[in-house]
């Protein structure tokens, strides 16, 4: 299930929620996705993420691993445990780029794992692929 479908069929803009505490990285991602036709909601704090997710019901969740308040892995586990959001596509971002983090993210149910820094083109393509499959 990729987001809400109304009586009029698919929504015009795909909605991505970004949870990232580094403001400049968040700004870069917002720019890239907006240019690609996404609607982007960005949050800086892990603690407020869950409630925002439940009300906004995005088509894609992009999660940083290291967050203040609540770690990305914890948020991911909570999302997967919630029957309403269990199918939500999730992309994890990490600046550590170590195998251990990737495994942990995949175990917790991430659909895709992207190391920072990333190529813009790859990033946008990955986001698209997650909502189209």
């Amino acid at each position, binding site marked *: 299930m990729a987001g809400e479908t109304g009586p009029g069929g698919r929504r015009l803009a795909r909605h991505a929620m970004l949870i990232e*505490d*580094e403001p*400049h*990285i968040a*700004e*870069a*991602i917002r*720019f*890239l996705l907006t240019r690609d036709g996404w609607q982007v909601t960005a949050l800086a704090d892990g603690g407020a993420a869950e409630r925002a997710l439940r009300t906004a019901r995005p088509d894609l969740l992009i999660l940083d*691993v*290291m*967050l*203040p308040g609540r*770690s*990305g*892995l914890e948020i991911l586990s909570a999302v997967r445990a919630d029957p309403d959001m269990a199918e939500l596509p999730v992309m994890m971002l990490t*600046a*550590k*780029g*170590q195998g251990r983090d990737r495994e942990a993210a995949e175990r917790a149910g991430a659909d895709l794992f992207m*190391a*920072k*820094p*990333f*190529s*813009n083109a790859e990033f946008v393509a990955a986001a698209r692929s997650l909502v189209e499959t």
Partner: protein
Amino acid sequence: MPFNLLVLACITYVAFLFLIAFAVERRARRGAARWLRSPLVYTLSLSVYCTAWTFYGAVGYAARSGLEFLTIYLGPTLVFVGWWWILRKLVRIGRQQRVTSIADLISSRYGKSTLLGVIVTLICVIAATPYIALQLQSVTLSFGVFAAAGSYGWALPDSDATALWVAVGLAFFTILFGTRNLDANEQHTGVVIAIAVEAVVKLVALVAVGIFVVWFMASGPSDIIMRIGYSDIADWDLVPSRWAGLIGLSAAAVMTLPRMFQVLVVETSDEAHLATASWAFPLYLAAMSIFVVPIAVVGLQMLPAEANPDLFVLTLPLSQGQGGLAMLAFLGGFSSATSMVVVASIALATMVSNHIVMPLWLSLRPTREVTGDVRRLVLVARRVAIAGVLGLGYFYYSHSEGATSLAAIGLISFVGVAQMLPAMLGGMFWRGATRVGAALGLTIGLVVWAYTLFLPSFGPVAMIPQAVFDHGPFGLAWLRPRALFGAEGLDPLIHALFWSLTLNTSAFCLGSLFSFPSPVERVQGLAFVNVFDTERAEPRVWDDQGAADPEELLKLAQRILGDEPALLFFEDAARQQGKAGYLPDPTPAFLDALERKLAGAVGAAAAHAVIAEVAGRARVTVADLIRLADETAQIMEYSSRLESQRSELERTARQLREANEKLTQLSIQKDAFLSQISHELRTPMTSIRAFSEILMEGDVPPALAAAQARIINEEAIRLTRLLDDLLDLSVLENGTVQLDLRIVSLTEMVDRALRAARQTRPERSFDILRDLPAEALFLRTDPDRLTQVFINLIANARKYCDSRDPALRINVKQRGARVIVDFIDNGSGIPKDKQQIIFEKFARLTDQTRAGGAGLGLAICREIMANLGGTITYLPAQGGAAFRVTLPLRLEKSPRADAA
């Protein structure tokens, strides 16, 4: 002599004493005055035994009962000459167990019993009451002498009012003297010195009057001997039972009187002083008694028959127009009274606060936690107790006035305190003595004493009806207060002494034989009876199983001992265990030492109870019981050697364990370091790469492009800063840093740091509590580097302090050539397991997968402080995160460069 002048003299004298005490305490705090604790001062302080009773009353006693007054001096003389057997042991036990009073000694010996503490305190307070009344009476009487002798038309309007004012004045004086601060080992150097001075004044005064009487009123010693031959004193007959009884009584009293126990045991600084006191104190007593008979004889002959012999010391010089000498004698008597009252009420107040108020507070407070400042409570309790004790003395004085002579009142007190002798000596020499026995003996002794001596002293009808004296209560003739069990015709004092001590001792022995001591009693009994066996492995009251949290213990100790002394004690203990920081492992040995330390402030029973709340109930292990049962010296020696080897091994093992823990932590941190470096470099790089790719595509509007270029720039700067920090750290670690040493004001550096740190979370309002007078120091150090440390600590507090009303306290202390700056916030602090690693590189408090700073700040601080010849440590148990920066006041050259 005008009354006003007399009052003025008293006040001046007291003010002078207070100044001496004050000055001495200041010097003692600086640790400068070793002579303050010399054997001479110790001996002079013992003269608190000679009260106004001795000063005025001995002459009256001699005038009434001939040489019998000597018994009061002979008893103590015997005890001191034979110091090797009893006093030495008493003082050793007192020091080893940090005993605060005789109540504490007895309570501690019998399993740290609260009940015994209460009973002994009651006995002491009741027995001291007539004695304090006696001092009030003597001062009032001596005022009266001057009033009557004066030709100024002034007459003492009301002796009750005078006594009341004297009592109030003495209470005020004692509170000022004795409870200005709470000392961990209950010693009052200033008071002791003031008492030593008073000892000299009273000796000089009495000897001066004696010399005047012998050589100026009579014509020399031979004339005096002739006069004695003619006087009634020569006809005096020695009654052996009374003579022996009184010597025994005063010997007991010199050890059990609360004030004597205070100067003899609690205030000793060195056991060796006893050896000097063993001959010097009897000499002092001899000097105090040598002129007693001459003064009495001359007084009886030359003064009118109705003159009160208790006041001959004053009235003889006055009758010869020697106002100055009379004034000296008056000050001597005044000294005797004040020193007794001051020491006795300090000793009694200590008992009341430690054995009545503390146990009440421990059982009444709402939570099990030790909250609030215990020290304040104790001090207030002591002040109230001092006022209460003097109030009781005044009450007794105003209700028994005129009924008895000075000497009789004093003897009543002596018999009262003698009731503690069986429990005390039994505890020191007999391992079989038990709590039940001691409680029975003390209670029965107290009751018999009160019934046969104390209550009758108020006068025949005041407390006990005449019918009871004549026919006994309920017509039981064998219970008559003056003839118990039909023992008629005895002197009332000897009668009371005999029956109270006989019944007391029998109850004590029987109770001990038929009851079973608890494990703690066994341990304490062994420690008391075998106090000189230092080789022996000491049995422990605490065991290894207790899960005491050292941080909780530290909090507890701070509330009782005060912050600095507690921290010092814990740091020391940790060092002895081979650990760094302020938190030693809660080993049985440490708990024991801590309990004794606390016992020095609040008494053994309360100290035991509060530690038990943190450490769990004390248990004596099977091994300890075996050790107790096993008597052979060989095994003792063997086991003590094993014990010392075991503790050596334990220490090494602890050090190894700690080193290993640290290595493991370090290796984890090495991994974390790489991961962290990667994160710290990749984060800025992500923004740089993303925005540079966007800009390369070239279709961005110019304004937006400029903003994106600015981000690239900022992130590049951030990368540079990180590399700078890493380089800084490496330079500091290698000791190749160039220090710029200058003389700078600490205030200025703190100001600068506060300004700079305001950039961290500027939206947060933060209370800063500073002690500007303490900060007014000039240091020779590297100001930029030190300020960098301050900025870091303040910024950390701004970042991490999680209090709703965040506040940061900056305390400054100078200790010798070092300066201590503490930064203490009111947040939830740093958990114990993290306190050791926060100073490591990239160690961060929050979980590894959560964001925060780069984790280099405190590591850099630690390296800077090492370069500045100082340290930075985490202070546990301060009610928030607390960092202590210690550095030299004047840094001459880089300590690292020296080592290189």
